[in-house]
Each structure stands twice: as structure tokens, then as C-alpha cells.
């Protein structure tokens, strides 16, 4: 009798466990390597928030699999980014997403490749990253897309002389050189001025540009602190230019909030206008989820991160359903990606670059970011000539 009770209890317990097992979603660990501190903290935070939003959207839709994110701060340093990847691998992640800055993503993705982990990013556009022959590295944006946007805008402005001020970091240098080549081919006279990443006073450089180059427009290829320094020097010396054009991290709501006067009429790459106005249902769903999670309006950094994570999670799901999650299936599924997203169709070439990436150019007008290039994406009229002084 006692034996029978014990046996029945054991069978009931096993049955309960089995029932629970079938009802529970399977956890899939995804590593997130992002700079939450250091010089890239602002964009790193946006990236992390975009990825978290994508995970929340995925988990709400799928009962059988749950995406669990393990996030590590790489402190905007290459060595810490490599350490983050190694730590994430030891925790059993099946893929890594995030990353910002080509000099951080380069070594981090190399470490991931050695460990056989796919790495997908929207924060590293240096051309050399996709020339390494890795079949685990993917990115949704690239230098060509940024260059096309900047050159397209300057072409629309019909400028004849451009001075390019660029930081000597890899990505900014490659982008500046690419823009120089493209503009020169179109008959534009280009002057190149490299500066060290730590440079704080741009007065002498701006004076040289003002008196020697006398350009129609100044193109800035750098990061936030560089833009602030250059624009400050320009406001003092008032070069006779028609436009101040920058790249990433410039046309953002945060820059408008912090430096409203300095940023007026400045152009920068921006896939979204501000206030955000999503035209698609997917875009509106993203914005709603993002605002629910973080109580702020998303910017393009968060949007890109959301898209990169969504692409990854879709590949992970396919690999999980095919039973290849643990055997390199995620990278193979990522390579097969052909997906419509908020930033357009995403398809990777053999090197992991998104062949369809293109960007827009925005102009800061008052407390708004107006998309002014290309015409089919424009949300308003360009103020041209237009400078912050």
C-alpha cells in the first residue's frame, strides 16, 4: 500500500514535470555587448534600449521561445569589448548583438568569430570590417550608405568647394576618404583636414579653412565632442559657408536639447524625423513599445538597434526550429536573411554587409529634425543656405 502511494506520487510528479516542460518556453540566451559608459555611452544606451525593445516584441509574440538578453558594458574600449564577448560566450549565448564604434566592434567581432558566435551590429561602418572573410559577422548599415547620403545632399546643394574635417579614427577616416573620392569625381573641389580624436580647440583649424579653403560647405566626420568643438569654432569665426554637414550622432534629439543654438540648421544623417513620425505599422508598434519601456521617444540609434536585433531574433528562431541553434545554424540563417524592416529590405552579401542600406539626411530646424534628403523620404523643406550663426 505504502509502495503504491509512493509510486503514484512519483508518477504524478513526473507527469507534472512533463506538463510544465511542454508549457514552458525555451530560453535562448543572446549576448549584448554595448558601451554603457565611456565616450560612446550616449549611443550605447540607445542601442541597448533598441535591442531590449526588440526582445520584448519578440517575447510577446512567441510562446515557445523566450529571448533572454545578457548585457555587458564594454566601456567604449576595444579590450573590454573583447573581454565582454569572451564572458558572454562562457555564459552560453548563441549570438551577440550590439557594439558601437568600429575600433571596438572590430576586435570584439574577431573574438566572436574565433568562438564561432555570430555578431550583428549597426554601430560599425568601417569598410575593413567586412573584408576579413568572417562568416559570422553581419551589419545592417555601412559606410557606403552614409557616404551616399552625405554626397547626395551636397550634390543637391550644388556646392563647388567642400572642406572635410575628419577625426583620425578608422571609420571617420574611411568615410571622409570615400566622400572625397565621390565628390571629386563629381567635379567638386575637396580639401581634407585630419584631426586627432582628443583635439579640443578647433579655432586654428577653422581659421585655416575660412581663409585658405573658402569652401561652400564644411563636412564633419567625427563624433559628438568633435562636432561641438568644430561648430563652436565656426560660430566664432563665421566662415562664409552655406552649410555645416555632419554624420552620425549629430542630428539627434539629445544634441538639440543640450545645444539648441549651436545645432541650428546643421545637417546630419538621420533615418527618422523628430518628433518621430513612423509611416508603417511596424514602426508605430516599435515606437509604442519603446515608449512603454523607456518613457522617451526613440531616435535612429534605437531604431537601428531594434532592426539589427529583430533580424537576429528571426534567424535564431529559424535555427531553433530547424534544431541547429547549437551547431552554427544562427550564422547560416543570418546569411539567408531577406527581410523587410523599418529601414528597408535587409539582405546580406557574402561578406555580411547589408546590400540595400541607404541613409537619409536630416536638418535641425528649431527643436525639430526635418528629413531633407532624399526627396522621397523628405519630411520638410531644406533651409539653404543655413548655418548656426
Amino acid at each position, binding site marked *: 500500500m505504502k509502495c503504491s502511494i509512493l509510486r503514484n506520487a512519483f508518477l504524478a510528479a513526473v507527469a507534472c514535470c512533463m506538463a510544465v516542460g511542454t508549457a514552458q518556453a525555451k530560453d535562448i540566451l543572446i549576448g549584448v555587448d554595448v558601451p554603457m*559608459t*565611456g*565616450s*560612446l*555611452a*550616449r549611443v550605447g544606451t540607445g542601442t541597448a534600449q533598441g535591442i531590449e525593445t526588440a526582445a520584448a516584441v519578440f517575447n510577446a509574440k512567441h510562446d515557445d521561445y523566450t529571448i533572454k538578453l545578457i548585457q555587458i558594458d564594454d566601456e*567604449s574600449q576595444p579590450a573590454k569589448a573583447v573581454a565582454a564577448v569572451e564572458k558572454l560566450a562562457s555564459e552560453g549565448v548563441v549570438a551577440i548583438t550590439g557594439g558601437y564604434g568600429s575600433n571596438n566592434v572590430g576586435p570584439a567581432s574577431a573574438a566572436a568569430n574565433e568562438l564561432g558566435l555570430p555578431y550583428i551590429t549597426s554601430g560599425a561602418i568601417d569598410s575593413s570590417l567586412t573584408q576579413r572573410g568572417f562568416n559570422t559577422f553581419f551589419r545592417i548599415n555601412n559606410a557606403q550608405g552614409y557616404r551616399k547620403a552625405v554626397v547626395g545632399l551636397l550634390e543637391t546643394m550644388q556646392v563647388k568647394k567642400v572642406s572635410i574635417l575628419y577625426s*583620425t579614427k578608422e571609420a571617420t577616416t574611411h568615410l571622409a576618404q570615400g566622400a572625397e573620392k565621390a565628390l571629386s569625381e563629381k567635379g567638386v573641389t575637396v580639401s581634407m*583636414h*585630419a*584631426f*586627432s580624436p*582628443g*583635439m*579640443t*580647440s578647433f*579655432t*586654428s*583649424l577653422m*581659421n*585655416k579653412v575660412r*581663409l*585658405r579653403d573658402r569652401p561652400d560647405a564644411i563636412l564633419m566626420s567625427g563624433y*559628438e*565632442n568633435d562636432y*561641438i*568643438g568644430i561648430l*563652436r569654432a565656426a*560660430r*566664432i*569665426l*563665421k566662415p562664409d559657408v552655406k552649410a555645416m554637414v555632419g554624420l552620425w550622432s549629430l542630428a539627434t534629439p539629445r544634441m538639440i536639447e*543640450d*545645444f*539648441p*543654438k549651436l545645432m541650428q540648421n546643421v545637417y546630419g544623417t538621420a533615418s527618422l524625423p523628430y518628433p518621430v513620425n513612423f509611416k508603417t505599422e511596424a514602426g508605430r508598434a516599435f515606437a509604442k513599445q519603446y515608449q512603454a519601456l523607456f518613457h522617451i521617444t526613440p531616435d535612429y540609434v534605437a531604431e537601428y538597434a531594434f532592426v539589427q536585433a529583430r533580424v537576429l531574433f528571426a534567424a535564431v528562431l529559424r535555427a531553433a526550429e530547424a534544431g541547429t541553434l547549437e551547431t552554427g545554424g544562427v550564422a547560416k540563417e543570418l546569411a539567408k536573411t531577406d527581410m523587410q524592416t523599418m529601414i528597408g529590405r535587409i539582405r546580406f552579401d557574402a561578406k555580411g554587409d547589408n546590400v540595400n542600406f541607404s541613409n537619409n539626411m536630416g536638418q535641425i530646424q528649431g527643436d525639430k529634425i526635418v528629413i531633407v534628403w532624399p526627396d522621397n523620404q523628405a519630411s520638410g523643406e531644406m533651409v539653404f543656405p543655413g548655418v548656426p550663426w
Partner: protein
Amino acid sequence: MDLILQSLFSGVLQGGSYALIGLGLALVFGTMKVINLAHGELVLLAAYVAYTVESQLHISPLWAIPFALVLVCACSVTVYFLVARIKTDRELNSLILTYGLGVILTNAILLTWSADVHSSTAGWLQSALMVGPLFSMRGKVLFFGVAIVLMAVLWWWLARSWYGRAVRAVSSNRAAAKIMGINPRTTELVSFIVAGILAAFAGVAIYSYGVIEPSAGHVLTIKAFIITVLAGIGSIPGVLIGGFLLGITESLTVTYASSALQELAGMVLFLAVLFVMPNGLFGSRARRG
């Protein structure tokens, strides 16, 4: 002509800024033979105080000077008491200690104010000022004047006041100064307090016309160190001349070569001066501290 004049003008103003940053380090180096590698972080701390005052109270960052003086001097005094605990090999061990303190300060700044880039939005300080055909930012000219005044006051203090003479005596011969009734510990403490005052002004200046982020501290320390060595140990006029030399060299390099070579030019100047004049520009003859 406009190009070279503007270049020299920008270089002189930048040099004044460098001299203000380097002055505190030079004073402590002169009196205690201690290279305070946390000096840049103390300057940066003052800059963050200015940011807090401006962003929270919505007033000019210049009003932050009293707050910065209190906080930075308190930190400077803490650095002194920690350095004073070193009993052996003070010159070498203080390097390690102050380097560590710099790292702690950087991380404290990071935790308190986050890693975002900050800069003043004060319109008056940011606006352009024309001096004949030359342009500059109003804040930069203002703090150039402040730097000159502070250096003059420090020069007078070292030359004429009792404490100033005591600082020079301790710097010259600690044991002899003690025999003459000077308390070396008090004198060294005073040096650190004065260095804290100078760092507070330098920090508010940097925030008023520049861009700050938590990792900027060590760059400031390097600049201050270069100027201190260029000047010759403890030389106050040397600090000013060293700052001008560095500022003008960098500015001319940007104008006539490449801005990417700016830092390199500064280091070449540093090595060239050391090669020709191993005791720095002003050596030990003109020392006032």
C-alpha cells in the same frame, strides 16, 4: 598675414589655458617633488561642478567657482594626507598612489555624472569677441586674464608672503626649513590647497569654453606635466612661457601642417627642450617655489 596672426593669437590663448591647468601641478611638484597624477582629474571635477551648477540652477557657470573651490580643495587636501602617509620612496610611490586616485576620481565622476559629453550653453561666454582682426570666444579671453592674474598673485605670494617663503624654503631644503621653525607638513598642505584653488579655476574655465567627458582628466594631467617639465621644476614664469610655447606650437602646426600632428608637435617640443635644456626653460635659477 591674417592667418598667422590668428594662429598666434589662438595659440597664446590656448597657452594661457594650459598654463592655468599646469600651475597647480608645478607648485606641488616644486614643493614636495610629488607629481600629482590626479591633478587633471581635480581640474575635471571642478568642470563637472560648473556643469552641475549651470544645469541645475540655470545660472552662469562662473557662479560655480565657490562650490568648485570647496570641493576641489577638499579633494586636494585628501590627496595630500594620503601622499603624506608614504614613508619610503615618496617620489615613486606617490606616482602610483596619485595615478590610482586619478582612476578613482574618473570613475566617481562617471558614476555621478554619466559618460555623456557636456559643454556650457552660457551665451555670453560662448559668444565671439573681436580684438581688431582677431577672433576668440569671450570665455577664453576672460579666463586668459584670470590665468595671468592668478599667476601674478601666486608669484607675489611665493616671493613676499611668509607662507610663500616657507614653501620655497621647504622646497629648497626640507630639513633646514624645519630647523628654522617652519612646519613642513603645514607648508606642504598649504601648497596642496593652493593647487586645489588653481585647479578649481582651471576646471570652471575648461567647462566654460570647452567640452568635458569623464575620460578627459588624464589628458589634462599630461598637458600639465609637459608644461611643468618644460618650465623647469617649480618655476612660475616658466609655466606661463611653457604654456604659451605649447599653445603656439600646436596652433602653428594646425595652421601650417596638419591638425593630426598637433599632439606630436607638442611632444617634439617637449623632447627638444629637454634635450637642449635638461632642467627646463627656467631651470633652477629663476625658481620661486
